[in-house]
């Protein structure tokens, strides 16, 4: 029986350290194949022998070593992770992520590498394994990666490699770390077989349009596929902090009369391709939860933009302001400001309030402030841990079901440009 091992320690923290080849060879019982497993080295296999190759790999690894009763490694798999990338640099990036998620999410990773610009040659495949430090039982938990490369025209046929390689009965997670090519058969076919499509809207060139297409996809032919966005996970602390303002029942009336929203985000230096995706998604979420409807389409000027929404018949303006402070978090939100008021029974303004969440310069925490009327602001501080792709991905892999809130936010964000 293969043991399913999961651990609630921090994802990817206890990454593998490999037993040195010398020690193992001295023991004199390790053959070449199990070393492949231990070292995570990729081995070329013929297309028809992928499964056979994996079986041999694991069979030899499952043999107990001299002087030991238990086999040193344990193969585990809780889902299929299908990933599509372009070229070797992206492959190296995702391979690293796969290696670090093994600990909490042992899976079979099937990586499709597209190299359409290279001369056409038959599809090639290689297999490798990722192992993590021994668990309390002394066994290493290992999982497998199958890399399939399509050069030139062969890249179009990569989809046909996926169905035969899926581990039966387990969910299929499709992770598209680059902007998904919505019109390509490779994308549409793979989405149909996936239980969850994970993309990153920071990679989108035209976020609102792509949101609209994706929302259409999720409601139309792919109603069995759940969609998720790494940017949505990045918004979790922001959404949480905004929600906390209104956990106090006295603040809730302000939610019905928001007069102005300002969202500051990191834009590229050249202002050529500002990425609004995260900011749009946040507004999409606010709009779907508070019943705002699009009134006018988004007006963009450089990295700034304005959007006018309809809040129960009254116009509400959203300002998107691009800044250039951090190169590594292009598209990331840095500050949110909500201005709101309440009315008395004669419909005159009773109170005003301003709610602000702003990242500090060290990007580790955010300062919150509430200013009621002319009173001095009430400030607070919340931790805003920065999370890398692996952690964001793990958050999405945790959820098997569809995320209704996200889908509603996505659908509305898709309507802002129409």
């Amino acid at each position, binding site marked *: 029986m293969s043991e399913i091992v999961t651990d609630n320690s921090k994802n990817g923290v206890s990454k593998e350290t490999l037993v040195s080849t010398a020690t193992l060879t001295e023991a004199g019982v390790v053959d070449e194949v199990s070393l492949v497993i231990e070292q995570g080295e990729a081995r070329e296999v013929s297309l028809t022998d992928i499964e056979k190759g994996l079986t041999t790999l694991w*069979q030899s690894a499952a043999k107990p070593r001299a002087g030991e009763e238990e086999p040193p490694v344990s193969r585990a798999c809780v889902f299929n992770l299908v990933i599509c990338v372009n070229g070797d640099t992206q492959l190296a990036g995702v391979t690293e992520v796969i290696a670090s998620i093994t600990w909490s999410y042992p899976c079979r990773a099937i990586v499709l590498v597209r190299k359409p610009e290279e001369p056409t040659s038959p599809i090639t495949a290689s297999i490798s394994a990722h192992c993590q430090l021994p668990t309390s039982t002394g066994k290493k938990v290992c999982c497998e990666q199958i890399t399939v490369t399509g050069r030139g025209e062969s890249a179009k046929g990569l989809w046909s490699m996926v*169905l035969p390689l899926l581990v*039966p*009965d387990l969910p299929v997670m499709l992770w598209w770390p680059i902007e998904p090519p919505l019109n390509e058969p490779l994308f549409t076919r793979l989405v149909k077989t996936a239980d969850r499509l994970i993309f990153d809207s920071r990679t989108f060139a035209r976020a609102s349009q792509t949101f609209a297409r994706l929302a259409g996809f999720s409601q139309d032919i792919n109603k069995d596929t759940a969609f998720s966005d790494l940017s949505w996970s990045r918004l979790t602390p922001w959404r949480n902090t905004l929600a906390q303002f209104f956990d106090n029942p006295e603040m809730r009336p302000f939610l019905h009369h928001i007069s102005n929203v300002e969202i500051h985000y990191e834009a590229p230096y050249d202002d050529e391709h500002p990425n609004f995706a995260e900011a749009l998604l946040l507004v999409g979420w606010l709009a779907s939860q508070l019943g705002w409807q699009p009134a006018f389409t988004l007006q963009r000027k450089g990295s700034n933009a304005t959007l006018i929404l309809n809040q129960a018949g009254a116009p509400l303006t959203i300002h998107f302001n691009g800044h250039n402070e951090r190169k590594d978090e292009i598209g990331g939100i840095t500050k949110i400001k909500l201005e709101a008021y309440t009315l008395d029974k004669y419909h005159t303004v009773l109170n005003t309030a301003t709610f602000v969440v702003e990242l500090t310069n060290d990007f580790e925490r955010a300062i919150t402030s509430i200013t009621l009327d002319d009173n001095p602001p009430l400030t607070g501080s919340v931790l805003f841990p920065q999370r890398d792709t692996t952690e964001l991905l793990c958050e999405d892999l945790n959820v098997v079901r569809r995320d209704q809130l996200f889908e509603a936010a996505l659908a509305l964000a898709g309507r802002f440009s129409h």
Partner: protein
Amino acid sequence: MMASSPSQAELPNPLRQGIRQERVPEPCTMIIFGATGDLTHRKLIPALYNQALERRLPPNFNMVGFARRPYNDETFQQEALNSINKFSRRRPVQPAVWDQFGKNIHYVQSDFTNPEGYKKLAETLDKIDEESGTRGNRLFYLSTNPDDYPTIVQNLGKVGLDKTKNSNSWVRIIVEKPFGFDLPSALKLNETIASVFHENQIYRIDHYLGKETVQNILVFRFANSIFEPLWNRQYVDHIQIIVSEELGVEGRGPYYDESGAIRDMVQNHMMQVLSLICMEPPSNFEANAVRDEKVKVLRAIAPLTPDDVVERTVRGQYGPGMINGEPVPGYREEERVPPETITETYVAIKLFVDNWRWAGVPIYLRTGKRLPKRTSEVALQFKPVPHGLFSQPGEPPIEPNVLALQIQPNEGISLKFGAKVPGPTMNIRPVTMDFRFGQSFGVAAADAYERLILDAMLGDSTLFARRDEVEQAWAIVTSIIDGWKLHMPPKFPNYEAGTWGPHEADELIERDGRRWRRL
């Protein structure tokens, strides 16, 4: 020749008792009709050789090839050697084993219709009995075109080869599939064979039954106490049986076009697996006790009415597509396949076993060519938990338990169940417990033919199809074929090579609120 009186034969051999390798048949001769055919080369000769290697064949085992091609003993022996070196799982041949095995291979060249050939065969067999002490024990193997079966059987009868030489010897005949083309032809074939051989001499081979996992269905069900209590309509929501191949027709176009997926797979392999999965516990593991229970299952499946056929079956035929990244042609473009053919290469069927145990539990079968991968599995999906303790209103229910028995290519058993994802929230994720034969026992499973031929030599017909089983399976399949004749075929091709079959097949199961398993 060593003669023995009946009284001697009835005495047990006390030296045989408790010897580890118990299953060694009595000395005998196997006669293969169609000895130069593909099956003989790929399967039968390698199977016999492997058994010789494992010392499971009787010491004086002889084999006689009977076919039209102008071979003699020597050339046929050479052919056999080539087959072993090419197809045996234990290749290359071991000279010590071959020396003994090869010299006992003989060849009789004759047309199947020529009575002289059978006389020559009878003489050869008598000579072998004389020289090798095989005492008249004979195992005929029909591996020819099925059209030749009646001729061969009748000619065997004419020269008296169907009869035993004395009360201690045995004569048996193995019949390869297909057993008929539909119910009437199956009845006729059975009638013809029965006019010469007695039913207990007839071994209808279905190599699926020789597979370890298929036999393991019985062990799994009746040697474990934890599963059988759940094996009924109270707990099982539905059953899925799949046999898929990524191959196309591979040059067998004319044969396949006559038969189609339903005759090629459903009538034999899938019905056999279905009956093992659904049968009641037999009173013992004796051949007829097991087969009695199997046939009861088939009898409980009502043949489909023309309306049922529309509602509960889907036909498909593959068009061009991709397999493993390579473009492949559609069925109609395959070699020697008529371009307008309406033969199905895919079929999905919903059946019910109307008995106390299974009433109302649908059994979904699907099989096809040019599907994404080669696999053969049976899965029991259990009913969902009665109360959704862990799911929020409006959310999909927790995934049900699935018990999957994998028959090929990797024989094994897996059980899917829900487990909590570590963390502060009640997130539940399906995980599987897997058992793989290869990993647990570390022994390469023998080829199905090895086991079955040995069983036939030993006189154990448990894993062979009995006449009534074959006829009952045909009754069900023929009702479907007849139903199809009444309706326009769908617009073929209706699925792309490399995908899991036509869209209509998904609808067939989704109408019932269920889904095909992901394989």
